[in-house]
């Protein structure tokens, strides 16, 4: 990566503080719901935050409606990390923070998996894995037809790419030269049944995407500087190469709380009150 765009030290510090708040909110909402996906929600916190705070053109920054047509689009293909998306959107001012406590409860706009039509900022319905990249392709094509210069961002889980449809979509993105599409894999190396490489081997991930015609970047998915640098570079790279860009973001499932880090058992489990207090203490430092 040459001439990588950089965040200032203050920006990084500020992002780190906001990330703490997002992590706290994720854990509090999952605890209040007594249900949710702790591990996979903690791993993409820095990714979503950097996109919404620094890389995407959207609502907050431009003081427009969430449906403003010149917005960048974000699709959470790994819909089970809905808590992260909701907590991030609340942080961005899409809705009141207190609504986070309705997560997964009857009548809520914060459905277990993102549901279109209820909450501002939710572009499509996801949750059934493997469908987000195809939808992102559709959005990318739609924007191109309208000669709209915005970008489409999509976050996939690493276990998710075991779904065959992801590879159908990967071919479509490259075939239609989607230089306005940036995909990110939350490479936390764990899925419900354990280590991804034991359940069904994913590596070498970079070579797979390259073979499908993508430009591939690999980063530390918790390092704001690396995330920002890669996403900004990807915007240019796609245009240069007339190709979609995949960012493989190496992350830690359950990141930020010692007892949940790298534990597959925390995939779909909420914390009890005692665990929550312990976790919040650690996050707040």
């Amino acid at each position: 990566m040459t001439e990588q765009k950089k965040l200032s030290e203050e920006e990084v510090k500020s992002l780190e503080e906001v990330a703490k708040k997002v992590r706290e909110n994720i854990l509090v909402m999952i605890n209040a719901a007594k249900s949710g996906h702790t591990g996979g929600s903690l791993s993409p916190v820095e990714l979503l935050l950097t996109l919404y705070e620094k890389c995407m053109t959207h609502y907050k920054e431009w003081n427009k409606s969430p449906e403003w047509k010149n917005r960048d689009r974000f699709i959470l293909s790994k819909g089970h990390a809905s808590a992260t998306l909701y907590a991030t959107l609340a942080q961005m001012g899409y809705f009141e923070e207190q609504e986070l406590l309705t997560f997964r409860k009857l009548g809520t706009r914060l459905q277990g998996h993102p549901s279109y039509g209820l909450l501002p900022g939710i572009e499509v319905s996801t949750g059934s894995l493997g469908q987000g990249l195809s939808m992102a392709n559709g959005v990318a094509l739609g924007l191109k037809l309208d000669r709209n210069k915005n970008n489409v961002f999509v976050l996939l889980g690493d276990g998710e790419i075991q779904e065959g449809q992801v590879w159908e979509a990967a071919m479509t993105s490259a075939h239609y030269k989607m230089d306005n599409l940036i995909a990110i894999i939350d490479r936390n190396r764990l899925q419900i049944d354990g280590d991804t490489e034991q359940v069904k081997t994913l590596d070498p991930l970079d070579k797979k995407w390259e073979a499908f015609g993508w430009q591939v970047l690999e980063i530390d998915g918790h390092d704001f500087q690396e995330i920002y640098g890669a996403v900004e570079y990807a915007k240019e790279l796609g245009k240069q190469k007339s190709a979609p860009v995949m960012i493989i973001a190496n992350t830690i499932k359950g990141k930020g709380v010692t007892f949940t880090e790298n534990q597959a058992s925390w995939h779909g489990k909420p914390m009890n009150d005692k665990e929550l207090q312990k976790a919040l203490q650690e996050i707040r430092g």
Partner: protein
Amino acid sequence: MVINKAVKKSLRIAYGETLTELGKQDENIVVIDSDLSCSTQTQMFAKEFPERFFNTGVAEQDAVCLAAGLSTCGKIPFVSTFAIFATGRAWDQVRNSVAHPKFNVNFVATHGGVTVGEDGASHQSVEDISLMRSIPHMIVIVPSDSIETREAIKFAYNYNGPVYVRLSRSNTPDVHDNDYNFDLNKAKVLIEGIDVTIVSNGETLYEAIECAQMLKKVNIDVEIISMPVVKPIDKETLINSASKTGAVLTLENHSVVGGLGSSICECLAENYPCIVKRIGVNDEFGQSGKAEELLVKYGLTADKFYDEVLKLVEKKNSK
């Protein structure tokens, strides 16, 4: 009614022509096909508007979600492939990515039913109506001729939400007049009668009409209802007819499980219980053969279900 059965027209070509016509009027129309554009006739649109035609290759799941994404940009996608793939292969995508958010995506699937012919069971969809009917927000339409196909496609274009239109591979004689107006909420009584009601759609509707004409000769007055819309079902027309005739026979090129017949049984059981006989594929798979041979084999031709109508009338009269 007079039908020229010597002149059969292609529903698929009617689709391709209508789609191309609509494409000229509205540049938001986009078409997605999965390597079957020569069969589904979306090739007609593709030739005219290559920049608005997207071929996903042999990837139906991708096609459905691609359409979902396009619809979020205000595009009006028509997704076409064979019925078996649009509904079976990509059911979860249709359900979660299109129907749940109620996106404006139209599915026009061809090669429904056993009349796919020689390709056999793997390609003969006898479950698609059942599969699509069970999805919330989904409209299900089975046109019977080229005229109804044209009007159903126009309806789908104008309707804001997911629509499934199922077309047959076989050509059919036109049973509707050229000035036919498609009404989502209204089935059409094509022939009035008092002894028994036959409800049908798709390519079997013509057989129903022929059977009614045969029965007229033995003084049985058949009422024929053309019911292209399986969901939402027109309860009123159905109940009115059943309360007049007291016996209803359903006829479809689809499994008797979950399709038009099931839909009508549900409606009548709740609103006007009466005797019903479902004619269709009897919970079995199709097989290879010529389309005409298969219609006979599965009892979907007028002379084949003629006796079933007689039995139904007899059963009613013996009550």
